């Protein structure tokens, strides 16, 4: 079984500051990793994904994440945030060897990023 831990439920930052949202996962096999963003009163949208290859992946809106296999982490970063980045961010994982069930995403509980002026 796999699980995802988002260590911070809330992260307040000031505009133009850097931010890191932490995500750790547990799985006994190889995984695909994702970050989704949910703006207020909207559904989730894919921010970025790691499937294979380079461990540093870039997504939309200037976000990037780094896959660290030894630390089983996939932290999300942005060097300078905007007020419009205020949203809830979800880390998700799918297991490559779950008997063909790798359509199932296991989500973390989310991190609410609040960007203040």
């Amino acid at each position, binding site marked *: 079984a796999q699980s995802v831990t988002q260590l911070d439920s809330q992260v307040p930052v000031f505009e133009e500051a850097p931010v890191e949202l932490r995500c750790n996962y547990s799985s006994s096999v190889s995984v695909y990793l994702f970050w989704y963003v949910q703006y207020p009163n909207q559904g989730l949208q*894919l921010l970025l994904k790691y499937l294979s290859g380079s461990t540093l992946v870039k997504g939309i809106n200037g976000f990037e994440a780094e896959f660290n296999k030894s630390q089983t982490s996939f932290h999300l970063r942005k060097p300078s945030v905007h007020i419009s980045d205020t949203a809830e961010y979800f880390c998700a994982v799918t297991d490559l060897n779950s008997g063909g069930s790798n*359509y*199932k995403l296991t*989500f973390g509980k989310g991190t609410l990023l609040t960007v203040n002026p």
Partner: protein
Amino acid sequence: GAGVSQSPSNKVTEKGKDVELRCDPISGHTALYWYRQSLGQGLEFLIYFQGNSAPDKSGLPSDRFSAERTGGSVSTLTIQRTQQEDSAVYLCASSPRVLLGEQYFGPGTRLTVT
């Protein structure tokens, strides 16, 4: 193009009543998912449809929950004899392919059971 749509956007119902939640996936997407989002609990997988294959119902929390997908397109999630713990946001997502986690989410239906 049009995204995933869900209706109603909000539903308030009395305990014990049945409710139906509807999802219209993106045209051409073969995979459809239902999730439940409770406050502070992240997203909980409920059910998955892929083409004409038997759905994966392993995430449904009880036999009061059921879902169907007609004609490989529209899906309905039905909750019978609703309980207060069913109050949550129900999210639908669709995907053009099974793999790789690229799911496109609708705005959700907020269900409140009084």
